[in-house]
């Protein structure tokens, strides 16, 4: 190369008590490229990001930007150097407007220290127009979709005239159309003197957006490949260090299973309208749909986390009333939330406390006293059988990587021995290797007679795992497809069905009719 590398990292190491997070890491970002950074959970991606943004200081190692050595001491300084990072969790103030968020701390001022909202909005408008973003400077950020909030983050990052933009799992919560918009935005950002480091678990995306892929594993550099000349299977096998089988379908599909749970006319005030379906013994029932279709809401309503306004739930033919999650647990229905940090884990408690939480009273106590020995023994068993990577069951949960945290949540419900398990996005934010393990686990549970509801935004995952697929759109259940009927196209069709179209119409037009006719019908109706 005649031009110096845009960003170069050499020999970076970083240890935490008991863990070597990065060891002799290196990374080279060329000017004008999108470099994908991939690795399993716990491989060190997040640590690397935090090192680059000045949140962590390194034990050793050297950094250079355009050939100039530099040191990062604080997030602010990293920004001034031209390194901007978009974290998975946004740093936005939900009650402020788009413009206020973008220019927070740098608001244009008038004489006397007063702020000028007009000037602020004009500045934001200029920036938004330059980046061609579908945003309004005066909108309140909290009212925007996740995708648009992310655009605000990007606008904010780019307003610092960033040269290096690092994105951590930018598409984790986006649908396909939103991903395409994001990729357009990235392509517009790339100039001869800028570069993007793109961290993602979604292999398909890397192909469409990145020039090269750097693979890291266990805190160490593995390899960097040209994306165009590499198959995703190769990348994945480098990541996990072993080959993966693909093109698998659901296991153990049968149509003679008994009905275990019947949900009839389930409705909630905010969203759900007349949702009815059945869950059978030993079955994996997939729930597909777009963001906001109401899949999570169905799960929360079933376990009593949200109030229902109508509907009945029948378990083994007997109607049951579930007012809160403790009722659900008594009926042996467990719910694993999509947001494990908020709704799944006690982050500041140890692994053992998390694993035994739901079964503490029932299995590990006598006269109100906790039987710690038994509890810890059971936790250790599960840590072993689920291969949770942790130095001990006394480790604090927040020190585990995302995939291992997810396994801890799964372990909690395995101890409880539930008949019905509702997995909401069980593989979100988890690397490919850990995903395979979760899939294996779900199949295993089903084959042992557990009934599983699996909510997922990744269509290939739903299609691969589900015996049947319930599809939702805007708070309604639009179809329940068998494994044979379900294809990417048919699921997407029902997932985009507008509520004003009757289901009967849909069946008529749906799979049989050409896709476009549905679209035109919809447009005609909207007018």
């Amino acid at each position, binding site marked *: 190369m005649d031009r110096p590398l845009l960003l170069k990292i050499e020999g970076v190491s970083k240890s935490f008590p008991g863990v070597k997070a990065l060891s002799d890491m290196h990374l080279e970002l060329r000017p004008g490229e999108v470099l994908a950074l991939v690795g399993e959970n716990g491989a060190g991606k997040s640590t690397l990001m935090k090192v680059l943004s000045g949140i962590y200081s390194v034990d050793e190692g050297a950094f250079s930007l355009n050939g100039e050595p530099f040191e990062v001491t604080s997030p602010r300084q990293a920004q001034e150097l031209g390194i901007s990072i978009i974290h998975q969790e946004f740093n936005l103030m939900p009650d402020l407007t788009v413009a206020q968020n973008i220019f927070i701390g740098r608001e244009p001022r008038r004489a006397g220290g007063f702020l000028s909202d007009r000037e602020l909005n004009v500045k934001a408008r200029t920036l938004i127009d330059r980046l061609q973003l579908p945003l309004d400077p005066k909108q309140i950020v909290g009212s925007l979709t996740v995708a648009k909030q992310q655009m605000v983050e990007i606008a904010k990052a780019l307003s610092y005239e960033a040269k290096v933009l690092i994105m951590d799992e930018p598409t984790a919560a986006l649908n396909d159309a939103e991903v395409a918009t994001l990729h357009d935005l990235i392509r517009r950002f790339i100039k001869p003197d800028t570069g993007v480091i793109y961290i993602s678990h979604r292999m398909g995306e890397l192909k469409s957006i990145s020039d090269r892929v750097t693979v890291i594993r266990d805190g160490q550099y593995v390899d960097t490949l040209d994306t165009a000349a590499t198959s995703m299977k190769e990348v994945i096998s480098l990541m996990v260090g072993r080959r993966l089988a693909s093109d698998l379908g659901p296991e153990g599909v049968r149509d003679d299973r008994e009905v275990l749970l019947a949900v009839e006319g389930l409705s909630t005030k905010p969203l759900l309208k007349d949702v009815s379906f059945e869950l059978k013994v030993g079955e994996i029932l997939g729930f597909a749909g777009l963001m906001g279709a109401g899949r999570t809401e169905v799960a929360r309503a079933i*376990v009593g986390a949200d109030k229902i306004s109508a509907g009945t739930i029948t378990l083994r033919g007997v109607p049951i009333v579930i007012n809160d999650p403790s009722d659900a647990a008594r009926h042996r229905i467990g719910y694993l939330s999509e947001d494990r940090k908020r709704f799944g884990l006690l982050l500041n408690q140890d692994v053992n*406390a998390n694993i035994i*939480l739901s079964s503490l009273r029932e299995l590990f106590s006598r006269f109100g006293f906790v039987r710690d020995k038994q509890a810890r023994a059971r936790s250790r068993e599960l840590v*072993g059988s689920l291969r949770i990577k942790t130095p001990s069951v006394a480790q604090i949960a927040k020190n585990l990587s995302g995939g291992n945290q997810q396994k801890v949540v799964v372990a909690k419900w395995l101890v409880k021995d539930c008949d019905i398990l509702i997995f909401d996005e069980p593989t979100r934010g988890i690397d490919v290797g850990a995903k395979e393990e979760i899939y294996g686990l779900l199949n295993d549970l089903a084959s042992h007679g557990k009934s599983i509801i699996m909510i997922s935004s990744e269509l290939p995952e739903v299609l691969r795992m589900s015996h049947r697929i319930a599809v939702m759109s805007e708070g309604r259940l639009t179809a329940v497809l068998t494994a044979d009927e379900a294809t990417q196209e048919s699921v997407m069709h029902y997932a985009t069905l507008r509520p004003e179209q009757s289901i009967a119409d849909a069946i008529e037009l749906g799979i049989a009719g050409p896709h476009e006719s549905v679209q035109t019908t919809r447009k005609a109706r909207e007018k």
Partner: protein
Amino acid sequence: MTPTSAVQDRPTRGLAATIKSRFQQFLAFGSLIVIVVFFAFASPNFLTFSNITGVLFSTVVIGTLAVGTTFVIITAGIDLSIGTGMALCAVMSGVFLVNWHMPLLLGVLAAILFGGLIGLINGFNVAILKIPPFIATLAMMLVAQGLALVVSGSAPIYFTDVPGYLEISTGNLIPGVNFPNAVVVLAVVAVVAAVVLNKTVLGRYTYSIGSNEEATALSGINTKKWLIIIYTLAGLFIGLAGVMISARLGSAQPATGMGYELQAIAAVVIGGTSLFGGKGTIVGTVIGALIMSVLNNGLQIVSVPQEWQNVILGGVILAAVYADNIRRKEG
């Protein structure tokens, strides 16, 4: 340790690891020792048997309140009603024993249960009505203060005619040795509370709710019910504190109580319990309460004016919490 032996617990935790994980308590304990040593050198009157028992004696009321409220604070709640609630329980003890002539044991029990009732109402307001703990217990603080005055007719109730009542606090279990019963009561209370917090389901749920209430609820635990139980339990300590203070004074003083809650909370915080919930111990709270009374007593002995004692206490609270923050950042 190699990664492959990952499933094992650390077989023996080194002293260093123990100190690190319980840093705040060791810090609090170390500070207590340092303060004691300092005052021992500063005044020959400090480290005498009668002064030490005096210090312990003066810790009882704040200590009892602090131990009870530790549970509430670990759930990430707060209880501002413990001070005036205590005054109300003292008054109720007077009502039961003096006005209604209930037998001693029954009257004391009724007063303690009355404290439980205060806690039950707090718990209901917090868990069921979803009123933030600060507000719910602030309201209860005012209600209890008002009721104490209403019930007593704004006049102290004297226990002069209740045989044995004063003995609860000032009597000596061992004849001839001037070691007040109140200290024994605090010790028993602390041990019981520590066992409940560490060894029972209730204790574990206290930490779980404080760590993440929603996740605990979604794990199938009836957090509303448990929160009510926890506040009720803390209320029993309010009742006990009411008995202890009135037995010490020989009277129920309806207009007192305000300010005790903040001292108790200070003791809890100095002892390393996080106001954000999920973290804290009874031992820490007891040490925190001791630090406060040793400081009060010692500063008095070395003739620091009363006004300055509070200034110093404020400084100690800031230092204690700041030390904890530093530890967290490094941890």
